[in-house]
């Protein structure tokens, strides 16, 4: 059941919906009516939802960007009144920390009626990301960006990068790509968004120390962004679709915020294709296992060559795909070796242990990383890490 409000004025910019299966009433968009009469269909839907559930009603306001006091008051009254009439019913309001006001404001309702509670949703959305985003991984992320940038700086202009554009870097991590892009290509504006507060804090610290302005580091959920539709000439999202369990949903959002005629640029890996000589077999075995390990945690680090399909399914035109290989011959081989060493720590040290792998497996698993490092540092060795860069144009 869905209620769309009047198409006139501002009240038409939101949608209310009831899902009986999940016992969930959701309301999304911007709700700023002049009078509560304008909300009648949605209030009726909320009342109907309450009448149709038992035990608990989830009220999903994750994508509720704006709600004026007139509307908040009206919806709150319906919920509070229901608490009094049906004391056995619980109300769980699902908010998003990204929106900023919903957790605090809906949280006040629990002071009036204890059967109303509020849960912030974001923290559980990215099951595997915590392995990669916190603490000691930052230096290695910087090294990775340094190595990929050598290639991407020449690739990017073929995918829509040029001076003066308005760009967004979604899942910007520690923000170093945005800084490099700004210095090299001088876009007019960069919005850099990530879901990790620690990474953003780092990005802001670097920007402040290096006196970098013009990059807006923004906290946000890539799957449900507050950014407006059709805003950016270029939207970049690097090495990120592969670590989300719902890449198509992220891509839909990237499409939404991209201007018609603009491009969305993504990079992803195919980890099983990491290679090295000597000891190629050991290295190949380990990286095949890396792909399976990520799959266990609902992440697809084999996504790179699937980029074309993902972009086509999301509705993009003029899809361009190319690949490049970061190797030990790009700059200092020690950088490459340090990166593999950090991968070993996270993949074999944290993730394999969490999956419950045996000591014997982990020993063999680690050996492939060590052999990859040896290949990188060997005077006649070669070590590679392949990456797929792809972009599509949003139709005009």
């Amino acid at each position: 059941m869905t209620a769309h409000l009047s198409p006139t004025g501002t009240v038409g910019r939101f949608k209310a919906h009831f899902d009986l299966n999940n016992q969930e009433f959701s309301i999304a968009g911007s709700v700023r009516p002049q009078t509560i009469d304008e909300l009648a269909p949605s209030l009726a839907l909320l009342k109907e939802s309450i009448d149709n559930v038992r035990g608990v009603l989830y009220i999903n306001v994750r994508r509720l960007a704006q709600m004026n006091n007139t509307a908040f008051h009206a919806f709150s009254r319906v919920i509070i009144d229901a608490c009094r009439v049906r004391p056995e019913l619980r109300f769980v309001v699902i908010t998003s920390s990204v929106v900023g006001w919903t957790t605090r404001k809906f949280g006040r309702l629990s002071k009036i009626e204890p059967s109303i509670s509020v849960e912030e949703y974001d923290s559980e959305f990215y099951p595997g990301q915590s392995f990669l985003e916190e603490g000691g991984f930052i230096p290695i992320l910087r090294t990775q960006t340094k190595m990929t940038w050598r290639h991407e700086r020449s690739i990017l202009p073929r995918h829509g990068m040029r001076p003066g554009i308005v760009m967004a870097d979604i899942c910007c991590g520690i923000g170093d790509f945005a800084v490099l892009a700004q210095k090299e290509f001088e876009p007019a504006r960069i919005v850099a968004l990530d879901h990790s507060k620690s990474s953003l804090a780092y990005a802001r610290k670097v920007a402040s120390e290096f006196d970098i302005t013009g990059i807006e580091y923004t906290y946000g959920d890539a799957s449900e962004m507050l950014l407006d539709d059709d805003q950016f000439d270029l939207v970049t999202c690097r090495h990120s679709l592969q670590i989300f369990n719902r890449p198509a949903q992220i891509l839909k959002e990237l499409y939404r915020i991209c201007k018609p005629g603009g491009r969305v640029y993504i990079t992803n890996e195919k980890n099983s294709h990491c290679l090295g000589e000597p000891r190629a077999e050991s290295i190949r075995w380990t990286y095949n296992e890396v792909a399976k390990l990520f799959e266990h945690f609902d992440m697809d680090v084999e996504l790179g060559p699937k980029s074309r399909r993902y972009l086509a399914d999301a509705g993009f035109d003029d899809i361009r795909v190319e690949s490049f290989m970061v190797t030990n011959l790009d700059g200092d081989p020690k950088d490459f070796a340090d990166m593999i060493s950090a991968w070993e720590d996270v993949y074999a040290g944290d993730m394999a242990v969490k999956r419950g792998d045996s000591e014997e497996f982990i020993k063999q698993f680690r050996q492939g990383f060590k052999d990859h490092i040896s290949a990188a540092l060997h005077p006649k060795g070669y070590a590679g890490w392949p990456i797929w860069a792809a972009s599509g144009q949003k139709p005009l």
Partner: protein
Amino acid sequence: MPTKDANAEPSFRTMIQVDMEIASFLSNWAHCDYISSYLARTISHNRPDSVLFSNLFSSALNELLEVTFRTRHSGGALECRLSRHGETDRIELTFACGQEERTFLEDAVARVQGVDRQARYLSSLSGDVAPSRDMMLLELTVNYNATLRLEEVDADTVTIVVDLGGLAN
């Protein structure tokens, strides 16, 4: 009521100002939304978390504009000025109104300073059918840590001054 003194706080830097005839403003409720969204976006770019800041600022400014929309005016213009000093963003809404409205606004602004504001806010949420203008101002102090005051520009004109500090922190 204090009088407006442009030199009192020179450190607040004006960022943007929108002036509109009151009659034009009142011609469409959606003006509250348009103005708050546009101004919030415009001043947010150099805040650390620009999107979050813009969303919160727009919410607060929209409520103030809605209060203004519901005020009985005596013609003239609406001035909406945004200025900044460090972490604090200031909204100043200047408009003409009669003595009765002025008294109402003075009382409402005085009430939102009260120590019981949280309790009054909750009481309004659970008791009133629709929010009063008092409540809308009160909500700014409860949910956005805003500070409010009213300034007299001249005998017929007042300015509501609202300071919002550390909005996206």
